């Protein structure tokens, strides 16, 4: 045992700069991290500030005439009906498919599970395009509900299936031993435990219903988002568009409130460690199996068959002519560039908040995080309008530049990066960093060798999610991109606007191919949360 000290000990440093309490580094580093988090969160509040600001400027009298008119009432009715009809259908479909693939002996259930996730790879407006080209007369609320359900039900399927896999099987055994019939066990014990998954999934679907432009524009169903877009295109930055955006933002906030109330305060995590057994599998009889298979087949035919067959039909009809590489390649390149830059920017911006939320959780960090979540729940069109207004008035040099587009992506997709990054940093508990320090590594080296290495996969997953979201982003890009920008999504949109469906097909195909990894990633993650 050496009695002498390593040479570095002579440079003992002041205790105050090192003072730690429960893993929080309250030194200069900590202050910087906090400052950066506050900065990012303030930026995230921009769209909300915009909504409040324009309302203030417009004045109550003008708001009254702009908001309380039949047109707004019509849009409100459309939007509310769309949400009220689509959500229960999505929930019912999501739970049925999840239960069939997770808890029954349905033949090929692993494949059905993958196929139930796959529709996510098809951008919503491509679903719509497929249906319009299949049935040109399709329009209005029924069409809106149909396409919305098949485009968005995986958002419910995924969390519900993951939760079903994770539930403690012993709880169901106990319920049955207390005299409950299988159906009663499902409704009184299983379904209540799915509440968080259902709430979370339904919120995601609801926000998409409010925010989506392309899907509804294509089938001529007017929602707030399509109306704002039209208004903006015809009057440019008029108070009418801004006021509609205000109402839409209120709808989103209302939805957030309803969801958080619906969550309740009951505890859903396992109280104990639970039993390690596998879930019990229900044996379906012949008729039920046929019925269940029919449901899977119909869902797959509608959600995957229709887009793929239509796309194939257009690609064959268009032949090699539609592969205009002179147009396609620049669009692909621009999409990739925006995607990579946006993903890098968003992931970097998420680092300080993710860091705080793991290493120094507290009230400030929770407030900062919720700022970002609220903004990302606002439709792209509201974020885009906010950035148009703010850049015109306060930052003219970046108006209609790539910087503004990237900023919009940052505001819209930050939580995607945040969630994965946080999980990544959580993989590297501060204890491991301490361990490295006790083995003679300086704090900086310990951070590099342990925490950053362990958080890297999480950061990469977050960046990939953001990248793929950007690839399929239409609304904000249409509104904010500088002249001459053409991404895959806007290129596709331009072609369909000219009713050149065949020329649009290659764009759609490339977007689907680019989205496949995202779908794979989501599928994989949902399996992993279940510990498989």
């Amino acid at each position, binding site marked *: *045992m050496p009695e002498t*000290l390593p040479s570095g000990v002579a440079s003992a*440093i002041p205790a105050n700069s090192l003072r730690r309490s429960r893993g929080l580094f309250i030194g200069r580093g900590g202050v910087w991290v906090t400052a950066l988090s506050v900065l990012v969160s303030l930026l995230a509040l921009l769209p909300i500030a915009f909504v409040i600001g324009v309302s203030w400027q417009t004045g109550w009298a003008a708001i009254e005439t702009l908001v309380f008119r039949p047109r707004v009432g019509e849009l409100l009715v459309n939007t509310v009906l769309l949400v009220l009809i689509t959500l229960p259908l999505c929930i019912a479909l999501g739970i049925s498919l999840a239960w069939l693939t997770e808890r029954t002996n349905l033949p090929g259930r692993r494949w059905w599970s993958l196929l139930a996730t796959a529709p996510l790879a098809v951008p919503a407006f491509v679903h719509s395009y497929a249906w319009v080209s299949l049935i040109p007369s399709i329009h209005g609320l029924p069409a809106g509900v149909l396409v919305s359900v098949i485009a968005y039900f995986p958002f419910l399927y995924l969390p519900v299936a993951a939760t079903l896999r994770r539930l403690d099987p012993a709880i169901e055994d106990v319920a049955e031993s207390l005299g409950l019939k299988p159906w009663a066990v499902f409704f009184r014990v299983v379904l209540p435990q799915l509440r968080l998954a259902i709430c979370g999934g339904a919120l995601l679907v609801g926000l998409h219903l409010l925010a989506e432009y392309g899907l509804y524009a294509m089938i001529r169903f007017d929602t707030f988002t399509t109306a704002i877009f039209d208004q903006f295109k015809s009057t440019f930055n008029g108070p009418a568009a801004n006021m509609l955006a205000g109402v839409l933002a209120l709808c989103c906030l209302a939805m957030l409130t309803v969801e958080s109330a619906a969550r309740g305060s009951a505890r859903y995590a396992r109280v104990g460690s639970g039993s390690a057994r596998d879930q019990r599998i229900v044996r379906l009889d012949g008729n039920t199996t046929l019925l269940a298979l029919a449901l899977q087949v119909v869902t797959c035919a509608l959600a995957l068959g229709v887009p793929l067959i239509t796309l194939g039909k257009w690609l064959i009809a268009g032949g090699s002519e539609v592969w205009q590489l002179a147009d396609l390649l620049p669009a692909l390149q621009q999409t990739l560039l925006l995607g990579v830059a946006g993903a890098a920017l968003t992931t970097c911006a998420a680092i300080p908040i993710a860091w705080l939320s793991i290493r120094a959780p507290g009230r400030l960090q929770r407030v900062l995080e919720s700022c970002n979540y609220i903004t990302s729940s606002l439709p792209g069109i509201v974020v885009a309008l906010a950035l148009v207004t703010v850049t015109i008035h306060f930052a003219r040099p970046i108006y209609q530049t790539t910087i503004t587009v990237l900023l919009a992506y940052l505001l819209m997709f930050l939580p995607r990066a945040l969630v994965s990054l946080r999980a990544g940093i959580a993989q590297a508990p501060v204890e491991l960093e301490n361990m490295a320090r006790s*083995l003679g590594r300086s704090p900086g080296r310990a951070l590099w060798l342990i925490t950053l*290495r362990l958080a890297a996969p999480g950061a990469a997953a977050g960046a990939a999610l953001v990248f793929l979201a950007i690839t399929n982003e239409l609304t904000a890009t249409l509104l904010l991109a500088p002249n001459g920008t053409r991404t895959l999504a806007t290129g596709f949109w331009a072609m369909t606007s000219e009713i050149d469906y065949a020329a649009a097909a290659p764009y759609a195909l490339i977007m689907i191919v680019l989205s496949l990894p995202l779908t794979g990633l989501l599928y994989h993650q949902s399996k992993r949360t279940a510990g498989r």
Partner: protein
Amino acid sequence: MNTLELNSIYKAFGAQQALENINLSVPTGSRTVIVGPSGSGKTTLLRMIAGFEFPDAGSLSLNGQTLVDGTHSVPAHQRLIGYVPQDGALFPHMTVADNIGFGLADKGPARQERIAELMDSVALDSTMAKRWPHELSGGQQQRVALARALAQQPRLMLLDEPFSALDTGLRAAMRKMVARLLADAGVTTILVTHDQSEALSFADQLAVMRQGRLVQSGHPMDLYRYPDDEQTALFLGDAVVMPARIEAGWAHCDLGRIPVNNQGKHGAAQIMLRPEQLQIGSSPTDSHGCPGVVTERDFGGNTCTLTVELLPAESEPGRSLLVRSSGMHAPPAGAAVHVTTLGHAHVLSD
């Protein structure tokens, strides 16, 4: 000579006082165990020695070098103190060999040799070098964590409940192996645990902590036999505590007249006996000792713990005592017995 000196250490987390006036000397080459219930501040103290926490007041020195005082602090990576936490905290992205070699400055072939040597010393098979932490059992993970901490030849080894996640049988075996290994290496060790039997068997110096304070320290046998107060007595094992009147080296209590260890004490006091100091005789002819009835028999294999209710004397209700008996000859519940005592009773401080 003392390796580690702790002087008047104070630490608070917000309004919560975590450590209060901790003074402790750890002799070179010794095995000191800090024992206390959860939340007593023992882990905080250990983390402070490692350099992960800093005291609000007080000082800490190792081999004469000040590690922390009011103005300066040596950072953790310059302390050369080994640390093995409860769950091992192996780096999940490194193989067993890389984990063990993490603290080695050497990069050449000598490194591989040293890793093999360390693995051998903790009885890990050399084929495990390429394994990943998640492929190891709990006991193997702890061995790797120990080898990793030993690699840098620490001046002091800190063990934070390293055996608590292991099965009972494995726990005792690991404890023996670690004790032997550290003794062979001559490394001064501090172990933190809430398990009193582990503390008693591992320590050559025992320190009992309660609510952020060090209530008593010394040789484990002394602490077990002569605890300062009832709480410490009960924390270190089963005990029979009863009121007594002390006169001229004898305690007069429900068990009759028992010699006490503290000759200077007089008047009313609490005395303590360990259950193994009580013996029972069940033969009806044997009238020696205090009469009572077995009310409960807790069979535990080699020993049996009996609850004996003494027959009421005067106006007082009968007192219940715990008595150990060999499993083979333990009388059944309801049997009439006589209780006698062995050795001295210990007089607790007021």
